């Protein structure tokens, strides 16, 4: 199709027509949009296979114009590995929440990163378990109230937040591991760029790539979507600093 030259922005073609089931203002939607835009812009959407998690993004398979599978809770990296190993020329990505990736799925993500598995992981850090009603996640901030830390997360008994990007960056197999945020236009642009580099990493066969995205959960945080963005900016960004934690030499070459 030809793009009318006065068109500045349109719903990405990488999407299906289906409206998402996400709550109003939930930035899962922004993350979806960025992935769809990148896959389309790179011209790889046609050979892409997505792996949905168990979490609010469980229905991600309804929204992208690609093949999709739906993994058991936390096992998306293993499923993605199975797919990528037998279809090395395909683009395989998993999309996972913080409960999925950093709690029940920690074993699979660390192993995949250590193997330098040539897959891309979009990691949505919203500091809680959204789908099941807002329980504490490994990423829940100290003192933060959730439905399973009703008096606020007590680090003495419930532990400290896990900074996933920092941790995975210690692995030699990890090629590209960065953290971005979705709380304002500038950060959204940075996030998109990172997602682009992550997929470029896979296309070039340069190993494991993961983009951690700070995201909102207005519903379970009990905030308006606008308040939720502020919370990300004021509370989450300081606890989970935005940055490039691992960029292998060859990946540093990539220009987008």
């Amino acid at each position, binding site marked *: 199709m030809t793009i009318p030259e006065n068109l*500045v922005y349109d719903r990405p073609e990488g999407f299906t027509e289906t409206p998402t089931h996400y709550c109003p203002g939930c930035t899962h939607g922004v993350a979806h949009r960025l992935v769809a835009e990148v896959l389309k812009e790179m011209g790889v959407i046609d050979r892409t296979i997505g792996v949905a998690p168990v979490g609010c993004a469980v229905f991600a398979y309804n929204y992208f114009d690609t093949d999709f599978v739906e993994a058991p809770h936390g096992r998306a990296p293993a499923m993605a590995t199975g797919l990528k190993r037998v279809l090395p020329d395909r683009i395989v990505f998993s999309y996972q929440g913080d409960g999925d990736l950093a709690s029940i799925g920690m074993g699979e993500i660390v192993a995949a990163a250590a193997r330098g598995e040539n897959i891309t992981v979009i990691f949505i850090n919203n500091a809680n378990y959204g789908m099941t009603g807002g329980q504490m996640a490994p990423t829940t901030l100290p003192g933060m109230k959730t439905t399973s830390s009703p008096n606020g997360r007590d680090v003495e008994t419930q532990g400290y937040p896990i900074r996933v990007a920092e941790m995975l960056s210690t692995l030699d197999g990890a090629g590209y591991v960065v953290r971005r945020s979705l709380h304002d236009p500038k950060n959204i642009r940075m996030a998109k760029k990172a997602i682009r580099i992550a997929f470029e990493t896979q296309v070039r066969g340069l190993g494991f790539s993961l983009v951690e995205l700070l995201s909102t959960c207005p519903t379970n945080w009990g905030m308006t979507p606008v308040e939720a963005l502020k919370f990300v900016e004021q509370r989450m960004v300081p606890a989970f600093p935005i940055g490039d934690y691992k960029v292998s030499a060859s990946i540093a070459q990539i220009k987008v």
Partner: protein
Amino acid sequence: MPAAKGWIEVSDLYCKGCELCISACPQEVMELDMTRLTPKGYHPAHTFKDGCTGCAICAIVCPDAAITVYREVTKAAATATA
């Protein structure tokens, strides 16, 4: 650069009235249209006055890809979407 002239379309199918676009719009020309309900029962966003520059910031923050942005053609247009 001189404020370009632009305009947007908000899809009733996708808009959930979350107001993120409204708070992001640098020209403050957006609001929820309290006179209308989408099929899903949300008040959709719209521009309530002139001044839209077609900067597409609203579209960039929209979690539901509900906004289409146009503007009178300028050099900048091509690169506007990050």
